[in-house]
């Protein structure tokens, strides 16, 4: 014990400057991340809602009357009593998987195209990055107008071709397809740019050598390009999963805040709990912690899988 204290003291004595430099960041992180997270965990063990938390209304201070309920909230959600968790989780997983799959494959395709020498390459790159530069809510609202059943451009096009107009955002299945389409449109540019960077870091000689050895284009892609992209791909897919899992704007703004019960993902549902009716702080916090845990578990396993693959090679 005493040795630990001495070690700490000695390390502080020599590195106090580093500690001082780090201190502001630590404080900011503690205030902006640590405190809300701790509060969220705490609230998820209580039955707190808008009517029973402490509040200050002018000169009146109303005392908190909520109480601890232990793991009750988690039990209600996980045992299916609360009724919405598993259906939402199922759709959230489908949504994340399909979006990230399309993001990655389309991004890879475009990056391969743009990586070859061609005329106006810079122009294409700029044009393809545009969807990413538009704020997500602006893009979502424009898509919403295009999907409009009566006055949207998509249905105008379909009727021109002699087909029946489609209720894009009204039907539960089509709603989901539309949402995926919008999110793919929004997310592909990022993947494209990231993969393009990865492609450019693969030494040219590797391709040339493979070509010399008589490898077909597919063999070159399979054995030179893909392995060369591994570290970039691993990171962007992990990021993509986390972002898409929590992609609030597209779902909430595209499908609307009303008639969207089946197409809600976990985060939009947690938002509804927190901001609808008498605000259910406890329920919303429970969902938040569950979402965080799911993503943490995913990230840990994913990283482990990547390192294991590295080790095999």
């Amino acid at each position: 014990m005493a040795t630990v204290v001495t070690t700490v003291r000695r390390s502080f004595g020599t590195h106090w400057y580093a500690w001082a430099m780090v201190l502001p960041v630590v404080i900011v992180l503690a205030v902006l991340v640590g405190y809300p997270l701790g509060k969220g965990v705490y609230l998820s063990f209580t039955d707190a809602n808008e009517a029973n938390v402490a509040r200050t209304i002018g000169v009146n201070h109303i005392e908190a009357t909520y109480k601890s309920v232990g793991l009750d909230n988690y039990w209600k959600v996980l045992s299916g009593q609360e009724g919405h968790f598993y259906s939402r989780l199922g759709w959230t997983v489908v949504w994340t998987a399909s979006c990230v799959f399309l993001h990655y494959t389309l991004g890879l395709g475009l990056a391969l195209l743009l990586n070859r020498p061609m005329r106006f390459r810079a122009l294409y790159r700029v044009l393809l990055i545009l969807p990413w530069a538009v704020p997500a809510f602006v893009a979502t609202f424009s898509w919403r107008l295009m999907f409009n059943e009566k006055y949207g451009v998509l249905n105008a096009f379909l009727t021109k071709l002699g087909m029946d107009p489609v209720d894009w955002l009204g039907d539960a299945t089509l709603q989901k397809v539309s949402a995926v389409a919008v999110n793919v449109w929004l997310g592909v540019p990022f993947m494209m740019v990231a993969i393009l960077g990865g492609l450019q870091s693969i030494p040219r000689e590797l391709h040339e050598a493979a070509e010399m050895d008589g490898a077909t284009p597919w063999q070159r892609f399979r054995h030179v390009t893909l392995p060369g992209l591994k570290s970039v791909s691993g990171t962007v897919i992990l990021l993509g999963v986390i972002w898409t899992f929590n992609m609030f704007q597209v779902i909430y703004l595209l499908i609307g805040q009303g008639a969207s019960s089946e197409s809600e993902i976990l985060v939009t549902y947690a938002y509804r709990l927190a901001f609808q009716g008498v605000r259910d702080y406890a329920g919303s916090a429970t969902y938040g912690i569950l979402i965080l845990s799911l993503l943490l578990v995913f990230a840990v396993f994913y990283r482990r899988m990547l390192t294991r693959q590295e080790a095999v090679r």
Partner: protein
Amino acid sequence: MRRGISVAAVVGVLALTATACGGDGGGGNDGAKAASDPGSVSGTVTWWDTSDATNEAPAFKKLVSAFEQKYPKIKVEYVNVPFDQAQQKFKTAAATGKGAPDVLRSDVGWTPGFAQLGYLKDLTGTPALDKPEDFLEGPLKNAAYQGKTYGVPQVTDTLGLLYNKELFRKAGVDKPPATWQEVKDAALKIKEKTGAEGIGLSPDSYYSLPFLYGEKSDMVDVAKKKITISSAASRKGIETAVDLVKSGAAPKPAGTDGYNALKTDFKNGKLAMLLDGPWATKEIFGGDAYKSKDNLGISAVPAGSTGTAGAPVGGHNLVVYAGSKNFDASYLFTRFMTDTAQQEQASTGVGVLPTRKSAYTKDVLADPVRSAYHQALSKAHPRPAIPQGGDLFTDWLQHYTKILTLKEEPKAGLDATAKAWQSALLKDYGIEE
């Protein structure tokens, strides 16, 4: 080490100054001065106005400057807050006690909920509520919660049946339909003779209420503590609406933005009838079909099979935040804005309906739209004055949209709505079969 300490000291000093700034109030008291000596009241009132920023707000801003002229010692901080964000914004500000306005223009559906959470000042007997007997009964009831009045009605509205007179004439329909059966007959006739669609039914749940009231039912029965949305009578009303869609008398509404699409069609003469409130008329008069304002007919909402007709009472109250630092000035402001003269001015300027009987003057009623809605108000139905009143529509909206777009059977949707209400909002209520 010394440098580290001084950084901490600076941070500490900054934090202290920041909190010190928040504590300053000024001239606040209990409202006695507003009654005895209004001229001596001074200070600032922050008002969150939720009216439409382009169409309505300029008229209200004019009233605010008139107030400042009358009470030169009081300054009004005018803030226009978009209607669809105001409820959440106020709740957040009110709960933390920081940044909430002194006076808010609150939808009638929000008022009981705010009152239950303790955010509002009881205005019963205060100078804010001047001559309560002069207010229309429906709006005043909508401002009350558990026998106390928490808001002063500022404007009121209700739904009416808007119709295109030219299309009616072309199809040979000589009078506006008075029951849903007549609506169906007229709509089909118009569709056959003119090619225009019959009646627009918005998939927004608020517009389902006339169908419930027409069967003498409602969403809930507060006195009996019963959820009545899934009762046989309610189902009959909703089935009437579905029948209008199925028979082709009403076009199938779009699931998203359905209301706006219908309004656009009505504006352009592609739709003969629309159920809507006075707030929509300004936009409708901008449409091609209503270049001559005479072409727009307005009558009361049609009756159901019981022969009674009813439309919901909507509108807005001015409410005073319980944590206001200056009740005197807030009361005076609330009272001024809801006085007969100001209501009259707002009504002729914006087209909204006054809440005071004495404000229905000749000038106000000279406008055919206002006089038609004034008549419709006599058949209007106050909404349940329970804290959950505003939230009932959220669950119901999801199912009503599905029912009306023929994606769900009425019974299944109504039962699911009743269950959702009982499990989340009305835990101590029973469900009436």
